[in-house]
């Protein structure tokens, strides 16, 4: 490796990164820990001269909040549903894309579109697709003026309009909409990574498999997936990290109330919980953020351990 004489040069190359990281990453973390330990810290009152005692009051308040488990539950549910679903879909799409020649470039571009669209538009479009206009949905005096595009399609095929995200909609319907939205957003990056991974697999393994008379399904399960496993592990791990921080997608569909009319906060997530208290209770928001960091850290460690065992070579 590098002789020790060059050691200080290496540190020199690292210097700009270290300095910037210290100021804009390490220090905010320290400050977050500081705020989380100041019981009831509120930045406005602090300016007004209020003083705070050190303690774990904030953490207690976060854990005792009656909707805390609901926020955690929602976050977990969304992660457990969207990460595997988007990974499997991305894998299937990547494999199919890799197997065709004509139209490959066009389809590849289409699948990357969500990545370049601004998140505002996406929220707007999905709302238009699922939103219903009318009154007393579900009741016998129900009046439906606009059922939303998805319901128009369902009715076209003879089904009955479903109340997806409006007043009186079921939790399951809300979750379905969120899963569709999150998966739709998560696909492009995952397809990109997996397609890249597929193309770096040596063609000869597939030739060998063909000569061995392997069926298409077994080629997929016994060769493609195992050889892609490092990429898959990476996509799943980053998927979970991103999934735990899900917030803007729920705001995109349900707005700041994080739930359909009449059931506010029903789909609130951990980051949503942090945001709620960020404007008034910075101490509590910091405590919640550190709790979330702890959870993500544990889940990622589990993921790393599992993937270490499962990933081949």
């Amino acid at each position: 490796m590098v002789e020790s004489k060059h050691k200080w040069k290496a540190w020199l190359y690292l210097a700009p990164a270290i300095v910037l990281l210290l100021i804009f990453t390490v220090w905010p973390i320290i400050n977050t820990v500081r705020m989380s330990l100041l019981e009831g810290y509120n930045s406005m009152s602090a300016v007004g001269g209020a003083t705070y005692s050190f303690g774990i009051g904030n953490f207690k308040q976060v854990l005792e909040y009656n909707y805390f488990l609901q926020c955690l539950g929602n976050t977990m549910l969304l992660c457990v549903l969207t990460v595997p679903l988007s990974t499997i879909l991305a894998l299937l799409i990547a494999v199919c894309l890799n197997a065709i020649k004509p139209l490959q470039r066009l389809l590849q571009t289409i699948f990357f579109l969500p990545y370049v669209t601004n998140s505002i538009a996406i929220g707007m479009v999905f709302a238009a697709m699922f939103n219903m206009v009318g009154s007393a949905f579900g009741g016998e005096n129900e009046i439906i003026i606009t059922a939303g595009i998805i319901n128009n399609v369902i009715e076209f095929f003879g089904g009955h309009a479903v109340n997806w995200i409006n007043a009186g909609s079921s939790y399951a319907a809300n979750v379905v909409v969120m899963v569709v939205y999150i998966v739709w957003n998560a696909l492009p990056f995952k397809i990109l990574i997996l397609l890249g991974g597929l193309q770096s697999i040596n063609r000869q393994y597939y030739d060998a498999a063909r000569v061995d008379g392997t069926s298409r399904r077994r080629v997929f399960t016994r060769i493609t997936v195992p050889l892609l496993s490092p990429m898959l592990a990476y996509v799943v791990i980053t998927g979970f990290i991103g999934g735990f921080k899900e917030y803007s997608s729920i705001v995109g569909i349900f707005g700041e109330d994080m739930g359909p009319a009449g059931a506010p906060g029903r789909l609130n997530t951990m980051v949503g919980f942090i945001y709620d208290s960020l404007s008034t209770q910075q101490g509590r928001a910091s405590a919640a953020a550190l709790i979330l960091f702890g959870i993500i850290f544990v889940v990622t460690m589990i993921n790393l351990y599992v993937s270490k065992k499962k990933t081949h070579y």
Partner: protein
Amino acid sequence: MKTKRILITALLILAMCLNLFSLVSCGGSKQPAGDFVIPEGGFDTTKEVTITFYHTMGSNLRDVLDRYIVEFNKLYPNITIVHEQVGGYDDVRDQIKTEITVGNQPNIAYCYPDHVAQYNLAQAVTTLDSLIESDMTVTRADGSTETLGLTDEQIADFIQGYYAEGQQFGDGKMYTLPLSKSTEVLYYNKTFFEKHNLSVPTTWDEMEATIKAIKEIDPDSIPLGYDSEGNWFITMCEQYGSDYTSASGDEHFLFDNETNHAFVARFREWYQKGYVTTQELSGGYTSELFTKAESEAGNSYMSIGSSAGATHQRPDKVDEAYPFEVGITTIPQVDASNPKVISQGPSLCIFKKADPQEVLASWLFVKYLTTTVEFQAEFSMASGYVPVIKSVGENEIYKEQFLDKADGGDFISALSAKVCLDQEKAYYTSPAFNGSSTARDQVGLLMQKCLSGDFSDVEAGIKKAFADAVAECKYQAG
């Protein structure tokens, strides 16, 4: 040897963090405590001063503001006004709160009482009493003079309900001056009402009768659309005289009481029967339901919404004519003789600053905007909001070209302004304290939950919803 070097660098980093820690943790410079003291020399017209103004004005309103800044600069050339549209009202609030933590908040800002209550935690807002009472004179560039403070006529000219809004922070001090106001009015399909000779309801009982009549005529309509659930709940509390919130005392959130349970249950029934809907519950704008053609399902014949949104409550012209004429009146009351109507719309607050000249310059500009009849007239006509001073009513441009032309079609904003001016005694203001904006949000959500929730036992459901709302308010207020 290697580990030694790593240790040194680690210590170095830690040291750096500590001093940063001390610098920032005290949260920027302390705000000057206590009320504003006017320096002896008064406003120094020779010294250049720049003041920043955060608002939510769209491009059309910014043009009006710019024109009047030019006029203002003719009087005070040494004051430069920099103004920015930060976004919506909540964006202005959040931006200012973050800026207060480091002490570089703007000079003047659009605000609601709830916002000022939060700024007061940091004692960041200048109280205006000393400025209002000051009888110092200021000589302007064109040689004319004006008293620094507000003369008695100017104070009397303010619409009392709007002026009082600046004082309900629990200490009787004056924190804001109203800039332009709106309220909630009842829009109704005048053509339809006359055709079926329905009488326009003035009380909630009459409203129920009218709704039932309309339902018979057009069964698949939603007779009434009430835009904001929060306003509806708070207005009903005021009309019934039941408790909502209080700025002082240790118990702030008082809206969990029988009277409120009762009217919420009643309106739930209306909602379930398809008599009424709100913006959130309908999934769209109630004004859209109102402007829908009769033939379409789900149209409304009455819509309670902001007086400023009058133009949205008017149907698009169909081959050069409006399909129906829109009537506007005061919203239904519990007791018509003692009307209570909400007062909304932005006020202006002035933030404490180290340099008193900045505060004085800000005061002069705020005074200019709120007391200059021409500005109030033009701003109201452009924004659909209502002027805050009565004398605008006599101003000939505003009167002849606007109020007198009020009609249910092209000049609908004028009609809405007339209704607002006629009901000036009816305005109420809610107490403002740290947590009052949470209360406003929570009662809105409470209304949605009670109207649309599928409760097996309605009464228990409503009771629990109220309890949860109070608990949430207490938790959020911290």
